[in-house]
């Protein structure tokens, strides 16, 4: 379970201060698929950074499995990310000059996984994204879709609890994008891994259990397709008052 409480983040100082996130509260149950939906500059990526321990909000709590990760020291946050989190980025960030196998191996090396186990895990991860036949190829020889599948393999190889995907299909055509989406949702359902997708694409967001709409650094609405009633309550509480009163410039 991930609980986000009262998170506030500001960039810059004094007059130039820009509130990137404010008054962010929500809870994500284990195994859910969540879309953080918003336009560019809305603060959705910042929220992802805060939730994954990449960034530190100056206020609030991000509680993962009962542990507030914002109180952790840098070393412990690194360990937390290495052992519990997988990342997928819009621009893939696969290492073009390295082999497919070496790309997938990176999180395992960082997490100090032993040699024998590494080999097994790499094969399993590549198998599940259908790239096992490319194991010895250089990543630069892969197509865009294959690269993103490679990134998916890298994200799941160490069996994380949470996968963050930042616009995972943004650089892909709709057919290959769909394939990657299917892989992500399939993995989410089969393994009970929490999947958090940051996107501006409502169609992709609609496939998720929970949609969190972000606008100007605030939660505009939260929709839970499974428990519409429960979430509607939250929306009634928060959304109308905040959305109008603060006129922040993006």
């Amino acid at each position, binding site marked *: 379970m991930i609980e986000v409480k009262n998170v506030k983040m500001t960039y810059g100082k004094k007059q130039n201060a820009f509130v990137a996130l404010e008054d962010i509260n929500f809870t994500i149950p284990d195994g859910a698929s969540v879309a953080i939906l918003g336009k560019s500059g809305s603060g959705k990526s910042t929220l992802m*950074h805060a939730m*994954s321990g*990449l*960034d530190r909000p100056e206020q609030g709590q991000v509680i993962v499995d009962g542990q507030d990760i914002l109180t952790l020291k*840098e*070393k412990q946050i*690194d*360990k*937390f*990310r*290495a*052992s519990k*989190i997988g*990342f997928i*980025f*819009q*621009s893939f*960030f696969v*290492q073009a*000059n*390295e082999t497919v196998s*070496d790309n997938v191996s*990176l*999180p395992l*090396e*960082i*997490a*100090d996984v032993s040699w024998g186990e590494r080999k097994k895990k790499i094969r399993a991860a590549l198998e599940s994204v259908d790239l096992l036949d490319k194991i010895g190829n250089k990543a630069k020889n892969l197509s865009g879709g294959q690269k993103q599948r490679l990134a998916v393999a890298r994200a799941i190889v160490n069996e994380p609890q949470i996968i963050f995907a930042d616009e995972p299909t943004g650089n892909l055509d709709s057919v290959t994008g769909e394939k990657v989406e299917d892989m992500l949702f399939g993995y989410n359902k089969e393994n009970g891994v929490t999947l958090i997708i940051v996107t501006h694409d409502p169609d992709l967001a609609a496939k998720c259990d929970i949609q969190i709409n972000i606008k100007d650094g605030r939660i505009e609405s939260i929709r839970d397709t499974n428990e519409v009633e429960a979430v509607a309550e939250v929306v009634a509480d928060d959304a109308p008052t905040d959305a109008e009163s603060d006129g922040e410039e993006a």
Partner: protein
Amino acid sequence: MKYIDTIKRAGRSLKNAKARTLLTSLAIGVGAFTITLSLAAGEGGKSYTDQIVNANTSRTELLVTKKQPVSSQGPQVYDENAVSGAAGAGSATQIAFLSQADLATIAKQDNVKTVTPNYRPSVRYITSEAGKKFVVDSIAAFSSSVTGAYAAGTVDGGLSSSEIIVPEEYSKSLGFNSPQDAIGKTVSIRADKLSSPVTAPESKDFNYTIKAVSSKSGLAFRTQASVQLSADATRDLYTYINQGTRAYGNFLLAAVEINNASQANDVKAALQAKGFEAQTAEDLLGTVNTFINVLLGIVIGFGALAVLTSVFGIINTQYISVLERTQQIGLMKALGMRRRDVGRLFKLEAAWIGFLGGAIGAGLAVIAGTVANPFISKALNIGDISLLSFNPFAVGGVVIGLMLVAVVSGILPARKASKLDPIEALRTE
């Protein structure tokens, strides 16, 4: 992250930028080349001087003289026991000679095995059956502890008092077709008895069988031009020539054989305390070695300068590498790689560059040195001695040292990499 994984990743990153890696390491390679060659020359130079020592004297031999009167302003105070000038010819300065009593004192010294005065008999000429007569520059006493080079014959069994060793040049002049031809032939040396009255000069011929012909050597200064006789034969000659003169029994120099080379300095000190001057083999070559060391220092200095230059090359390359790989670093940090490990990755890359440069430079130096050695030996006329001698430990030391230098130069770029903010690094827009 495991060390071995970091090393592998570092190696792979360098492989992906082959040209740049190679060029950067070549800079360090120049330093490695220079330093390796200098060290080899130092090593070779030392073994060269060592061989000079062995060819001219032995480490168990000390050359002893009487302590000479200190020259001061004003006329020298006359010393009853000192002999004036060479062989007492009445010169302005007095030279203190070793008397028989002195020799006895030296012989009684601890650890002294034998004392052989430097007889240096001056003879009229040397001749063979062919009849031509030649002047003898010097006659030296044969010493088995001095390594000589021979064109023909052997002196392994020592030299008896009726045998002689002649230099190669003499054997030719004396009418022998080849050094081999001279072995076993008889030569005769004419000596004048100095004490005989001018009106009735007395001379005598001493006959010797040629045991060996000494060859010219780049190392031997003492024996090169000397006709060598056994110690006994030298003494006999000396006695015949000088007996009855004032100088008889007084020697400028004596060779003192000691039991063990390690005692050389102790014996030297003891002899100095008793009014003698003693020179060990090391003293003799100290100057040569100092000269070699100064030269080496200069060359190594140039090597160090090259290394210093390459340090900036490494810093520069690694900085650019960090900038180029911002995304990769960001990704690694996002995936939970620790600062320390990111820094280590870049330091290890620098270490790889250092290793490569060191290995290339040192390797080329070894190859170049091995190829050049015969030519150098020939040019300097030092026989089959290698002036460049490569010690594997020294070569390894150079490579390891340069790796350390590279790691130190990699510290700054590595710090930059480890401090990189992953969010900033992963921002693609």
